[in-house]
Structures are given as C-alpha cells and as structure tokens.
C-alpha cells in the first residue's frame, strides 16, 4: 500500500499511518459548565440526525488560536518531511462547523509500538474538559508535503471519522506553501458518493461505474473562515505594537525553480504510478476478453458434440460448470487508480496556482524595470 499510495519520502516504510480514531463522542456527552454557549447539546442532536442531511457542513469557522497551534506543531515536530497529525475539537452550529481547539498527536516511534493512542486521546479529552474546552471531536488535521495527501490512509481515516461523526472534516495544512507567503489551510470532506462506495467496499470497475464517480468528485472542499474573539483582537493590536516589523513579503519572492522542480518531480512519480496501473487494467481487460472468447468456443464445441451425439443416439455429455473451468480473472481494484488520479489532479492544480502567481510577479517586475 505504501508503494502505491504514498510518496516514498513521506511514508518511509511505516505502513499504514495510524490516524486518530474517532471513537469518542459517544462517551462524553455531559455538558461542561462554561462561560461560553453550550455546545454539546447541539452536537449530539446533529449526530443523531446523521444521514438525513445532504451536506451538513457549508462552512468552517476556525479560531485564530487553532491556526497558530497547527503552525507551531508542524514547525517544531514536523521537520524532515514527516507528516504531523492532530485532533480538532469544536462544535457544530447550524450549518457551520466551528473549530475551537486542537491538540497534536505524537509521532509514531518504532519502540513505542502500540503506545495506546486511544488512551492518549482519552486522557487529553478528559483533561481538556476540566478546563472547559469543547471536548467534541469534529475532525483531524494533517500536514502535507507539496500537496501529496490523497492516499489510502487518509481516505480510510476520513471515512471512519465521517462515518462516526457526520460533520467531520480533515484540515490539510501545507507548510511549504505557507512559508511562501500565504497561509495554506484547506478543509476536505468525502462526498456522499464516495462514502457509499467505501461502505460497500466494492472497488471493482463495475461498482465504480454504478456510482458514477470520478476523481473530481472524491473530496469536496469546504470554505474556511477565521474568526477571532474580541480579546484576541486586543492581543493582536498589542502584538503589532510591540513586535518588530518583520514583514518579509515572502509572497513577492521571484524565485520559483526550486519549488517547481520538486512539484514536477512528484507529479512525474505519480504519473508513472498511474501508467503502471493503466497497464495492469489493460492486461486485465485483454485477459477477460480472451477468456470470453475461449468460453464461447468451448460452449460452441460442446453444442456441436452434443448435436453429434444426439444424432448418433449416445448419451449427451453432462453439462459442466463453465465457471469452474474458466475462472474469471480478478478485476483489479480501481480505488487506487482513483486515488492516484485525484492526487495527480491535486498536483496539477497546485502547480497551476503557483505558476499563475509567479507570472503575475514577473509582469510586475517587468513594469518596475521598465520605468528605469
């Protein structure tokens, strides 16, 4: 799985990534006496009506502090293109998902084999409840390396999350893009169609054709809005007052080749994977058609023989089970292809976004130079 799904740099031999499990919301349903509006009641309501809403989450509202926490987590623990993950906490208000807090998940280490993440999570949630932090799971976050996050592990995790909690999302934080000048945080959910398929676990070509799902309909992106309370606003004013003006304007940086190279390298790898997959599928369909032909021929011969025997008055040959003789070849699972296609699409999108920004910058530089 790691060979097909992940970029070899990211998932170095650790198969599969264990993502935070969503088994919590049923445990903690008591209401926390807090200064803020009661959240838990609304959430349990939403959870119980799961399945009747088409797309329960139209917008995501994140507290500024959560953004800072995610950035910090990656910065401190995520160097070396490791993927960092964590859990999002919050509540659901009408059609908005509010994320009010988060906590990071420790990295997997070889010696800590089964160090019991469930227990870590439980303890964390219990402790946070004591200090009146919303303790409801609403999703999880993950950092990504140049946009390569469409993988089997992510799909499985998000599926189990969305299955347990209707409104959960996965936040993908791209630190490299953020380092280039603008915060890159995206929220994804699985489309209902994809949820259906995952539930059936029917990944054959026929199954996918029935659901009529393309790589563009795998994930739906939910718009994100950042919200700050008044007190945090005051803090912001204070920070601006006191901190040095370190506005580096990374965004206007003209150099692009390094980033482009890496992106294209990843894109090429995935395209290679995809072509391998296509070859596999082609051989399968060729085998299938050949087998059909053989079956046909066999049947015909049978019929001829039977006709002859009838004419001679001999007993007919027993009908043999065709299927046992011609075992149909296994149809290759198409889920991986779908994932690869999705990933390729994502890379292309990122590359295009990057090039459009750079073209803009180059034209600006030309204008600047032209005035001299």
């Amino acid at each position, binding site marked *: 799985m790691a060979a097909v799904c992940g970029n070899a740099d990211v998932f170095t031999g650790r198969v599969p990534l264990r993502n935070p499990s969503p088994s919590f919301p049923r445990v903690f349903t008591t209401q926390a006496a807090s*200064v*803020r509006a009661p959240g838990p009641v609304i959430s349990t309501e939403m959870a119980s009506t799961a399945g009747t809403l088409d797309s329960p989450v139209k917008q995501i*509202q994140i507290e*500024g*502090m959560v*953004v*800072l*926490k995610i*950035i*910090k*987590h*990656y910065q*401190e*623990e995520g160097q070396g293109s490791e993927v960092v993950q964590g859990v999002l906490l919050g509540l659901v208000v009408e059609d908005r998902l509010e994320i*009010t*807090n988060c906590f990071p998940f*420790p990295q997997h280490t070889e010696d800590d084999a089964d160090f019991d993440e469930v227990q870590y999570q439980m303890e964390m949630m219990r402790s946070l409840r*004591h*200090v*009146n*932090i919303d303790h409801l799971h609403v999703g999880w976050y993950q950092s990504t390396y140049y946009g390569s996050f469409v993988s089997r592990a992510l799909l499985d995790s998000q599926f189990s999350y969305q299955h347990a909690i209707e409104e959960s999302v996965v936040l993908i934080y791209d*630190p490299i893009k*953020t380092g280039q*000048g*603008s915060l890159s945080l995206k929220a994804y959910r699985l489309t209902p169609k994809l949820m259906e398929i995952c539930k059936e676990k029917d990944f054959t*070509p026929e199954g996918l054709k029935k659901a009529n799902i*393309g*790589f563009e309909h795998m994930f739906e992106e939910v718009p*994100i*809005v*950042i*919200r*700050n*309370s008044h*007190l945090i*606003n005051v*803090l*912001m*004013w*204070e*920070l*601006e007052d006191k*901190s040095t003006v370190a506005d580096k*304007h990374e965004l*206007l940086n003209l150099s692009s080749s390094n980033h*482009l190279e890496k992106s294209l390298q990843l894109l090429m790898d995935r395209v290679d994977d995809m072509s391998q997959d296509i070859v596999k599928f082609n051989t399968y369909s060729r085998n299938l058609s050949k087998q059909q032909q053989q079956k046909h021929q066999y049947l015909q011969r049978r019929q001829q023989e039977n006709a002859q025997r009838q004419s001679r008055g001999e007993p007919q040959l027993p009908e043999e089970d065709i299927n046992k003789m011609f075992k149909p070849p296994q149809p290759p699972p198409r889920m991986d292809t779908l994932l690869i296609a999705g990933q*390729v*699409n994502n890379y292309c999108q990122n*590359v*295009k*976004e990057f*090039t*459009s*920004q*750079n*073209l803009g*910058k180059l034209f*600006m530089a*030309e204008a600047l130079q032209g005035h*001299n």
Partner: protein
Amino acid sequence: MSVFGPVVKIHPVVLASICDSYERRNEGASRVIGTLLGTIDKHSIEVTNCFSVPHNESEDEVAVDMEFAKNMYELHKRVSPTEVIIGWYATGFDITEHSVLIHEYYSREATNPIHLTADTALQSGKMNIRAYVRLAHLSVLCLKNSEGISECQYVFYSAQMGVPGKTVGVMFTPLSVKYIYYDTERIGVDLLQRTRMTPGRTKGLTSDLSQVAGSASRVQDMLTTVLAYIEDVLSGKVTADNSVGRFLMDLVNKVPTISAEDFENMLNSNINDLLMVTYLSNLTQAQIALNEKLVLL
C-alpha cells in the same frame, strides 16, 4: 524596564491560548492560571506552549489541581519531548499572596520558574504582558483583564528579601519580554491581524493572484507613505533625518540595474518555463479525465 536576567521570548500561540482559557473560565473565577512550557537557553527563555490548570481561589486559600498539571505535562511531553516546564502564568492585574504560594509549587517543578502576567481585564488601556522572576527564578505573570481594553503582561523575577531569621518575603523582579515568531507563524499572525478590520471579526482565506495583488497593494501603500515623507522633506516641512536618508538610498539601490536586453532574456525564459509547466499540467489533467471516461465506458 531593567534588563536583568535572561530575556523572555514568547510565541503568540501562548498568548492566544491564555486569552482563550481566560474566556472559558468558570463562573466566579476572577483569574486563570496555567503552566508554561518551553526551552531554556543561557541568555533567553523561550516560551512555546502552555496549558491551563484548574484552580480555586478564595480570600484566604488557594487550591491548585496539581495532579492535573502533572498529567497534562506528561501528555504534552509525548508530543514534544524537548519542552520543559519553565514557569506559570496567571491572568489578573497584580501579584497576590496566592501567587507566591503557587510560585512555590512551581519552583519545585522547575529550577527557575518565571511568572507571566497578562492583563486581560485591560486595566490600563493596554494588554500589558510582563514577566517576573524570583531573583533566582523567572516567573511570568500574565495579567488578563476581562474588559478587553488592554492587557498587561508582566514577567517578574522574584527575589528573597527580608530580615534573616524572620519571615522571608519574596520580591518579583520584572524581566524584558520579546515576541518571537517562526516564519510561518509570522504569516499566520499577519492573516489573523487582518481579522481586526472586518466587522464580524472574520476573514476568509484567499488564493491565487488575489494574494499577490494584496501584497503588492500593501507595498504600494508603504511606498506612498515614504513618498509623502520625501515630499515633506523637500518642501522643508520636515527636517531631513540622515538615517532615514540612508535607508532610502538602500531602497533605491535595491532595484538592480541590468541592461534592458539581459532583463528581457531573463524575463522571457522565466515566463516560458512557467507557461510550459502550465501547459504540461493542463495536458495531464485532460489525460486523466479522458482515462477516467474510457475506463467507465
């Protein structure tokens, strides 16, 4: 403020967490306290994380849930093993006697705890953030006031004083506080600062060219300010300042003087690269879409 002892460098995420836990305090609690985590250097103390600790405070006694604090620290250590307890914070305005007691507890946990105060009640119109330490310890006291007008953060350094043999008093000495950011953190904070302007205190995330446009307009604003200043100086309204003049010189020299031809070449080759990559990615996308359609036939 006296520059005594190490400098305290605070990350904005710590302050945001403190604000948040203050907003979520229990009914009747006037302030919240919590533990500060970070790293200690020879000359500076960097505060990178924090978590709040439930506590009860009344006129004559104070109770801190130490078990909780220990537990939380263990959990946090799992994620970032390099962070240690370096002190504690409290919102509120002043250092009270209870603070001394709590400080005692924390001096058992860390060698030189700092006490951070953040004035969330904004008593003096600003959120003052100060750090204190006992003459052997740094304590970071966060005073947070609920009115939201200003926050005082004071970092105190506490010292023992008094007549030997009698009750020993504790003196908290202030330390200098700096705010420090990682690069990505800076960008995140910049985005958050833009929420100040919108009425609902919200901000969506933009993408693509609009970001470049935004950045360019900000540079343009800055240039306008600079130009206005230059006009003033030229017309004699403002006396010229040499250091500013030097900065302006640097600024103008930053635009490299390249011959027009060379620049054309560089520009064209860059544009060609980008266009080629765009073409390739469009081609790839068309290809996979086509493949999809074929498979699903």
